[in-house]
């Protein structure tokens, strides 16, 4: 099902089957070039598959943006251990709601992506780790897996070859931290979702202590198009160092929020004004987060000439992240946003690393005090200092994810923090009133 109207600016590669009748069925999939790429990949050498993915300039769509072909090439060829494919469908970065659509509307594309990855490293089993809240996707995915077995795309001797592959769904149970790759692997093994120390990286020691390709849903879903139409064609859709399209989740104060598949390098202003229909109620843009709540915030002025791709956003010290674009209008209280974001990280910190566990809790308290009008001028510096001291001091990126946006809020919107000083009530209240119970916490 689609939850918003498509946009004429979209370039539909991964979402090409969205909206077709019965788009999740293998019947529709096979009618629309389904499993053609897998057939092609079966005749290729593993290194040729990886080379094609490298040529495509596909970069990880879960947030880190690491080159996918390179990641696949790290799996040791000579390891005697079995190798695994793990799909990260634990989508839980605030602002992100795209993997849900990919599985709901085209689950076979994900299976085919897993098969291609499996061929590239000679893996024979794959797990799709789906967040607990997405229970309905497990039913959709299980049905697609059963269909694939029936039609000979999963199981033994696939398409008459010696290759065999089994796929399984696995449910999470409510933990943002399990979207982090090493915590996800712990969770997959039936443990608390705490991160592992790296190196070794999952490519070498991943699921069940074996070499593992672990990628986001959207990353795997790009593989069939890359093999089918060639890596060069996929690369050409994007910008020089990042190929293809990105499912972009527009949310917040927009007239037409929704999930849209846009080519990498799409202009930010055009994305907000034309794809997203502009700021609602005729208001002005104040700020936006380009890739989920973990990314540093950008101001309206920073949008000028900016494009949505990994390098362009890195230049302005933010990130493309998971593609969750959160747009805030001129009436948004940035202190309140900073507080809500920190409440999230404090809640989700797994507690394994002290800088993250203690840092998020302290920052939440400080920001709460500030928003309540009891902040002190020295707190502004303290918030920034605390956040900076978390950076790089944890096993996984959750600590950074909490610190980076906080630093950006304080640096870019210091005036809004100052406007809350000396017991003054939030200048944006009561229009943006915080729920009473939040204040009470």
């Amino acid at each position, binding site marked *: 099902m689609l939850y918003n109207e498509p946009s004429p600016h979209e370039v539909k590669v991964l979402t090409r089957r969205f909206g077709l009748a019965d788009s999740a069925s293998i019947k529709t999939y096979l009618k629309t070039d389904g499993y053609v790429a897998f057939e092609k990949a079966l005749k290729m050498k593993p290194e040729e598959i990886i080379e094609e993915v490298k040529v495509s300039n596909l970069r990880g769509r879960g947030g880190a943006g690491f080159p996918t072909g390179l990641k696949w090439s790290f799996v040791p060829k000579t390891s005697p251990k079995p190798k695994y494919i793990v799909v990260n469908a634990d989508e*839980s970065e605030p*602002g992100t709601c795209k993997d849900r659509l990919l599985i709901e509307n085209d689950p076979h594309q994900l299976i085919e992506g897993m098969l291609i990855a499996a061929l590239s490293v000679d893996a024979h089993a794959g797990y799709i780790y789906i967040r607990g809240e997405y229970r309905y996707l497990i039913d959709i995915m299980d049905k697609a897996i059963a269909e694939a077995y029936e039609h000979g795309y999963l199981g033994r001797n696939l398409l008459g070859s010696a290759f065999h592959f089994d796929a399984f769904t696995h449910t999470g149970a409510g933990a943002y931290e399990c979207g982090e790759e090493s915590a996800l692997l712990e969770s997959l093994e039936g443990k608390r979702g705490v991160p592992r120390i790296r190196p070794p990286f999952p490519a070498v020691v991943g699921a069940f202590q074996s070499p593992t390709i672990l990628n986001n849903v959207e990353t795997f879903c790009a593989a069939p198009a890359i093999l089918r139409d060639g890596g060069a064609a996929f690369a050409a859709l994007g910008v020089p160092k990042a190929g293809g399209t990105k499912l972009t989740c527009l*949310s917040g104060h927009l007239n037409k929020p*929704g999930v849209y598949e846009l080519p990498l390098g799409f202009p930010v202003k055009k994305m907000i004004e034309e794809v997203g229909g502009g700021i609602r109620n005729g208001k002005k843009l104040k700020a936006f987060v380009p890739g989920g709540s973990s990314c540093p915030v950008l101001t309206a002025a920073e949008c000028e000439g900016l494009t949505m791709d990994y390098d362009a956003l890195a230049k302005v010290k933010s990130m493309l992240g998971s593609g969750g674009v959160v747009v805030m209008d001129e009436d948004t209280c940035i202190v309140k946003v900073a507080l809500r974001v920190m409440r*999230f990280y404090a*809640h989700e910190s797994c507690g394994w690393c002290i800088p993250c566990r203690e840092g998020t809790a302290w920052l939440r308290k400080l920001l709460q005090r500030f928003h309540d009008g009891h902040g002190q001028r020295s707190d502004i510096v303290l918030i920034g200092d605390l956040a900076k001291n978390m950076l790089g001091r944890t096993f996984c990126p959750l600590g950074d994810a909490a610190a980076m946006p906080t630093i950006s809020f304080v640096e870019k919107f210091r005036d809004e923090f100052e406007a809350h000083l000396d017991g003054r009530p939030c200048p944006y209240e009561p229009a943006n009133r915080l*729920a009473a*119970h939040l204040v009470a916490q």
Partner: protein
Amino acid sequence: MTLSPHLEAKFAKLLTSYPPGRQRSAMIPMLMFAQDELGQVTQELVEEVARRIGCTPLQVEEVLTYYSMLHKKPLGKYHVQICTNISCMLTGGAELWEHASGKLRIGHREVAADGFFSLEEVECIGACSWAPAIQVNYDFHHHVTPEKLDRLLAGLRSANAV
């Protein structure tokens, strides 16, 4: 412990889904699927799952306390989960939360006296582009207004009236 045929089938499949000697992997799915039927994770279930996957009950206990969706106390027949994270907050999620709490006269993670509704303020549920969003049990509802929520809750009430 006697499980329903549906659950037995699920458990049997789970035990063969992971590499040999890795049956512990089935723990969280087993707890989740069983909780859906039982309404909560009971001590009996903890022991049953531990026995089936070759763990101690304490090891199961240690894991289940980590995950926010696993709970040892029963929730309402309809568990109303309201997202107030950033995208939902910007579009009225916090006000929706207040409205729901006032209407049902229960707070965060509380169950109404008749056990029909329970309420939880949740973190991002992955519906940001169609915010504000809620989940009732596993069902998503998008673009929820206080009025729409009232109609939804009333609909659930009348559908269950004897």
